[in-house]
Structures are given as C-alpha cells and as structure tokens.
C-alpha cells in the first residue's frame, strides 16, 4: 500500500543504523550516568525521612485498624443486643480481661495517631498562612496527646468497685 509496510512488519520502530558502530567489546561506549542518580558527590539530605515514615505508618496502621475498629463495632453495635446492652457493668466485664484492655489500648493509640497525622495533612493542605497552620497544628497536637493520655489512664486505672 505504502512505503510504511516494511516498517510495520518489523518488531521495532527503529530502523537499521547506517555505517559501522564506533564501539565494540574492546572499545565499549562510555557510560552515561542516569540523571539525578545518588552518588558520593550528592549532598546529604537534611530533612530526614519523617514524611516517608508517616506515609508508611498510615498504611500499616490502617491495615491493623480494620481488624480492631470493625471488631469493636461488631461487639458494641451488633452482638448481644447491640447498643442496648452498654452500661457501666458491661464495660467492667470487658475490662476485666487483659485481652480487651490491650485491644482497646492499641486501638486508641493507633486510631489517634493515624487520625492525628491525617488531620496534619489536611491542615497543611488548606491552611495557607504560616501562623494559621501553626495554631491549628498546636491545637491538633494538644488534643491528640490529651486524648491518648486520658484514654490510656482510663484503661489502666479502671475500678469496677468505684462505688
């Protein structure tokens, strides 16, 4: 049909190179370093890997939280009469077991750190003025630390015979 036919039948779009190659096994082509390759001359990063660790933590904690939070919701809202059964006596029964204490403690820490780090991203995205960001993050970190400490304290000091 056209002169293109010969090209289309080949497996590659690159045509034959005219002339002889300048290089062979005895005279290999010079190695061209990949752009942005890290070498001994690359200056050391001064920023550390915090953002990468945070990114990884969001994914790892997410996987664990699926089990912890959905398990928690099934226990609290579905099994045994759902929400109607919840009361002081019910909580006392659950926290009598170290298993559920550890479950709740882990859920508390992971969910608060995961959610807190998620909110840090949201603040960074929408708060454009540096001072606004500073204040919002200060508020966020205060609330996060306070909630984690209060929740842990409640689990560790729970007293079924408080009255």
């Amino acid at each position, binding site marked *: 049909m056209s002169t293109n036919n010969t090209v289309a039948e080949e497996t590659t779009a690159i045509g034959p190179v005219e002339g002889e190659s300048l290089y062979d096994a005895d005279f290999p082509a010079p190695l061209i370093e990949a752009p942005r390759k890290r070498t001994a001359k690359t200056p050391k990063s001064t920023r550390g890997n915090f953002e990468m660790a945070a990114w990884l933590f969001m994914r790892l904690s997410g*996987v664990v939280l699926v089990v912890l*939070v959905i398990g928690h919701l099934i226990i609290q809202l579905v099994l045994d009469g759902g929400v109607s059964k919840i009361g002081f006596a019910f909580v006392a029964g659950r926290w009598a077991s170290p298993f559920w204490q550890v479950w709740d403690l882990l859920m508390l820490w992971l969910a608060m750190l995961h*959610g807190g780090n998620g909110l840090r991203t949201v603040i960074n995205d929408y708060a454009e003025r540096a001072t606004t960001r500073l204040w919002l993050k200060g508020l966020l970190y205060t609330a996060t630390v306070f909630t984690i400490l209060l929740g842990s304290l409640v689990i560790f000091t729970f007293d079924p015979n408080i*009255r």
Partner: protein
Amino acid sequence: MPAGTLYRGREGMWSWVAHRVTGVLIFFFLFVHVLDTALVRVSPEAYDDVVATYKNPVVALLEYGLVAAILFHALNGLRVIAVDFWSKGPRYQKQMLWTAVGIWIVLMVGALYPVLGHAARQVFGS
C-alpha cells in the same frame, strides 16, 4: 479553599474527597468517644446517663452514619493501600473502587437491622 483543589473531577477525586471527609469525621467522633468513656472514672451513674442517650432512636441514626463512614474509609483505605503496594493496583484502581462500593452497600444493608432495629421497635412499638 485554595484554587486548584478540584482536579480531574472523576472517581479518583471523589473517592479521595470522601476518604478525607470520613477520616476527619471519625477523628472528631473518637475525641468525644474517649471523653464519654472517661466517665467510667467518675461514677457508674454518670456513665450510664450519657450512654442512655446512645439508645435514643435519633442517635441510632447517627450511629448508622458513623458505621457508614468507618466502612467506607476502611474499604477505600484498603484500596489505596493496594494501589500503592500491588504492582497491578494502579491499573485496577477503578474496578477496586466499585468493588469497595459494592461491598460497602452489602454491609450497610446488613447493618440496618442490628444498628437500627432497636430504634425501629421503639418508634413503631414493640
């Protein structure tokens, strides 16, 4: 909102918006939730009084909404993780989104009776 936060506007963006909104909602819920649970350190009566409001039919609807938010955030979160770590993840991101939405609908229908049953009995009698 800063200019340019609306990008592309297709499934990928809307699932991201929903993931963000549900994540923020759950965080605020959890803050209040730890406060109300802390009432067990005050007195059994204080705790039981507050928990009694959870059994109110209107609050049951909020609980259903919370379950909806958690399930979406969890299922879509697993999709995000698969997109990032599974070599074929980016190629199937759209199929995985609709799979997640499908599972979400099934679970939400399944949660209707357990979460809202007691409220329905209270509102419509026995």
